[in-house]
């Protein structure tokens, strides 16, 4: 039984429209939803949180059709879901009272509440903040408290809208680990949105992408479709584009789709001899900075993305229009 089964959903506000033909979410799975601002990630989560009533279509939650007009059953369903809002708001109360809130509204009382609250605050290293009020917290602390307020609940679904936004870089890994641990311990469905492809990859094998209000399977960087040939000496290669041959380490003959992780690509000013079977001469078309890493788009007959650190970028002194060599191992080419 799927946790969610969405069928022919339409929901709109002003000029924005959410359109989901068919979409299922299973338990014991982490889903990462990628997409630019305004693509509908938050609307999707509001819909999954059963806070928005769709204009058309059906939502099945844990096998039953959700009746948005029946307050009581809707509330029961909503209470199986824990939802972290984007840029969350902390009530003007102590950290402890904030974390208690979801338990209190569910009718938990006394010792049971304190036991759970102390447990999650301890696990998230927030115990020292327990008596502070919301206004006394830094942005990163507030985000972690808000996450604790959600994770303290024993839910079947956790909806996390950009859980590591506003958090300093050092805490990102910790929070990701806490989310992964929660999946292990609860077998819940965890659906999180993120801007970062890297984070999506780290967290999940089920990456969805939102584009203009509709859900699509994620399209990877450096995804190519071509035909795989096995030569006499066992060397396998795929021809993509008009004149590019990419060596791969395995696979059988026929049409395939492959992806190459941009982080596996090595850039150099000169050609150098190495064990990498793939080496191409190309021209830098685009340079984008994403904090510590730089994304480069290089044309080798087809466009290829490569990710390098800020440091090596500066060291190499690269510019748009420059010619570079790129190389990667045959084993870095993943066949989908």
């Amino acid at each position, binding site marked *: 039984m799927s946790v969610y089964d969405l069928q022919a959903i339409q929901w709109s506000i002003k000029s924005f429209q959410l359109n989901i033909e068919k979409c299922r979410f299973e338990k014991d799975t982490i889903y990462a939803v990628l997409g630019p601002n305004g693509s509908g990630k938050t609307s999707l989560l509001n819909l999954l949180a059963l806070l928005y009533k769709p204009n058309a279509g059906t939502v099945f939650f844990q096998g039953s059709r959700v009746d948005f007009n029946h*307050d009581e059953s809707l509330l029961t369903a909503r209470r199986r879901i824990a939802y972290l809002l984007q840029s969350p708001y902390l009530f003007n109360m102590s950290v402890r009272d904030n974390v208690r809130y979801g338990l209190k509204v569910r009718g938990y009382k006394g010792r049971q509440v304190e036991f759970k609250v102390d447990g999650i605050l301890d696990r998230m290293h927030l115990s020292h903040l327990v008596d502070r*009020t919301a206004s006394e917290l830094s942005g990163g602390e507030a985000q972690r408290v808000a996450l604790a307020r959600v994770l303290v609940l024993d839910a079947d679904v956790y909806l996390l809208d950009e859980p590591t936004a506003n958090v300093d870089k050092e805490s990102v890994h910790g929070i990701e680990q806490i989310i992964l641990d929660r999946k292990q311990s609860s077998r819940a469905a965890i659906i999180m949105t993120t801007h970062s492809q890297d984070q999506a990859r780290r967290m999940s094998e089920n990456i969805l992408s939102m584009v203009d209000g509709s859900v699509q399977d994620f399209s990877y960087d450096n995804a190519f479709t071509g035909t795989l040939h096995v030569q006499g000496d066992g060397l396998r290669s795929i021809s993509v584009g008009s004149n590019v041959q990419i060596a791969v380490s395995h696979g059988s003959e026929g049409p395939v789709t492959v992806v190459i992780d941009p982080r596996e690509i090595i850039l150099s000013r000169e050609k150098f001899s190495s064990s990498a079977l793939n080496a191409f001469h190309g021209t830098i078309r685009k340079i984008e900075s994403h904090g510590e890493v730089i994304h480069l788009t290089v044309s080798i007959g087809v466009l290829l993305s490569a990710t390098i650190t800020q440091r090596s970028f500066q060291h190499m002194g690269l510019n748009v229009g420059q010619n570079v060599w790129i190389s990667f191992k045959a084993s870095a080419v993943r066949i989908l």
Partner: protein
Amino acid sequence: MDYIWEGIRQAFFIILRLDKEFAWIVFVSIRVAFTSTLLATLVGCPLGVMLARKRFRGRQALLTIVNTLMSLPTVVVGLMLYSVLSRRGPLGSLGLLYTLTAMILGQFILVLPIVIGLVASAIRGLDERVNRTALSLGASSWQAFFALLREARHGLLAAVIAGFGRVFAEVGISMMLGGNIRGYTRNITTTIALETSKGEFALGIALGLVLLTVAFGVNLLLASFQKRIRRVGI
């Protein structure tokens, strides 16, 4: 000038002796003002929240009306209710005129717009994410409503205190609807008016001191809440 000093001297005696009539008069004022404010709070809070949050046609006009009614003259309320409650009026048969109930009703009408207006402005000043946050954590719509009230608690208390201060010090409604009946509906303000017209100042001054003390206390409370509101930035 001597009669003024004499009045003040006697006033202190009255207060220190806790004269029975004096105590009753203060009690009537507190009881009527407290009841009317409590009722107005119970009715006005939900209406204020609704006015602040619901989008409907005529909302802006309603807000303007409420804000105008916040400075409703007491004698106008007295006049309106008198005409309704008097023997010839539509509710004359209830026999409410010159009772504490009539005074409470009048003060309720006076303070209701104040509570609604101030509650609405306190709720409108809240972060728009409060309601959604409560719902996202599993609150029912009632629980979310109480979360709103709790977030606006300082503003709500300020509204209630301001309302209490207004009715505690009013004289028009108490006089016209209570009738200033000794030992029954006579309260602080109507006594002061009567004693002054009789040329007797002692009791009036004593009661005036009580009024001033209460007004001072109310303002002190208000100021402390406003300070808190500013600090938490609601």
